[in-house]
């Protein structure tokens, strides 16, 4: 099918993109918009490395067709900080040593931010379940959970 033009609102800015309509949102965000925070781990919805926010809710962008995200507000990890000032969740991940290789972290942080939006005072179990869609091969999750707890408690 011929390429199409559509507008994606990413991190508060409209971007005109010109691609085949069967491209995933992840492909467009990374390859067209050059926002490479979201990662492709599995491509099939299992790992959460490609997590972005669409209208404030987390989705795995590897399973969203880019034209389906037109007209919605998309937030990637690049849009979370306020200028030079990191989002409290980003800062907490640094302060708690929650990051090792970093591959899972953009998705993990967005899932954590959205979790606290939906449930501002989660229990430890709710936190663990809340990030069940984000796999981390390095950290064992413990310091990630601690970072989220610290933001929830503050």
């Amino acid at each position, binding site marked *: 099918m011929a390429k199409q033009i559509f507008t994606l609102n990413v991190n508060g800015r409209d971007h005109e993109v010109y691609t085949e*309509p*069967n491209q*995933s949102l992840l492909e467009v965000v990374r390859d067209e918009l050059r926002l490479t925070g979201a990662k492709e781990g599995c491509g099939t919805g299992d790992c959460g490395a490609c997590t972005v926010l669409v209208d404030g809710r987390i989705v795995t962008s590897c*399973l969203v067709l880019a034209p*389906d995200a037109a007209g919605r507000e998309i937030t990637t990890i690049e849009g979370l900080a306020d200028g030079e000032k990191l989002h409290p969740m980003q800062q907490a991940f640094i302060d708690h040593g929650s990051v090792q290789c970093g591959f899972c972290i953009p998705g993990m942080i967005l899932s954590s931010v959205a979790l606290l939006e939906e449930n501002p005072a989660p229990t430890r179990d709710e936190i663990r*379940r809340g990030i*069940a*869609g984000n796999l981390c091969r390095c950290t064992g999750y413990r310091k990630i959970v601690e970072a989220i707890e610290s933001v929830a408690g503050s």
Partner: protein
Amino acid sequence: MRRFDYYRAISVDEAIALLNEHGEGGMLLSGGTDLLVQIKEAGLAPAYVVGLSGIDELRELRSNGDGLHIGAGVLMHEVASDGTVQAQYSALCDGAGVVGSRQTRNMATVGGNVCNAAPSADTGPPLSVLDATVHVAGGGGTREVAIDDFWTGPGRTVLDSEVVTHITVPAPPANAGSFYERHTPRQIMDIAAVGTAVYVELDGDGNCSQARIALGAVAPTVVRAPAAEAALSGGPITAARAAEAGRAAAGEATPISDQRGSAEFRTHLVEVMTTRSILHAAERAQG
């Protein structure tokens, strides 16, 4: 991703017209959590794809005294967090709430779960025991299909170039309760090895006046367990009678062995989980 032509519909009529216009081999796309995975991993190669996510009329979730209306495009998280569904259609809330991860539940639709026709679909047994009706629209008009007649095999339904518009569920009486649970080898992010859903109505004496029991992942489709229903109906819901119905259900399951469990293990699970689900549903009916 494998290339395919993609058309986004903005109304049900337009979706049907696109299917008719482009002919054989087209597929519908809602949340994409089954279809895109099948395209990427299982070699599915649709001639073209028609997107439904822009159709507002499919997004409606509402209830009144007659029952529940679930648009085919309603998301799992919307169903699971709806107060009326939680209170009155609890088994459906149980099922929608365990699908995948939070990300999955923000994308996956009830209509997609039903139309994908996996015997392990987590809203399948709940919709079956809640006596749901599937509303279908096609070139020849609209029709209604009882949920138990909708699935014809693994991944197969009665649909013929048609769109599911919504699913309706009759309002249960006050003395009714329903429950769904599944067993998965992993706690989260896994597919059911067995799912059991139970709906019961109690009469004034506390006897079971109506029972519906459905099993997931132990037959080519979600199936009802009529012998278990008969064993439970017409008497009080005691542990002993629940166990008897559980044994009857195990006799009605025809599971296969795969990586999520042997046929023998699954049959055992059916007995244990049906028994337990009956008692939970009865608790809710009294609740």
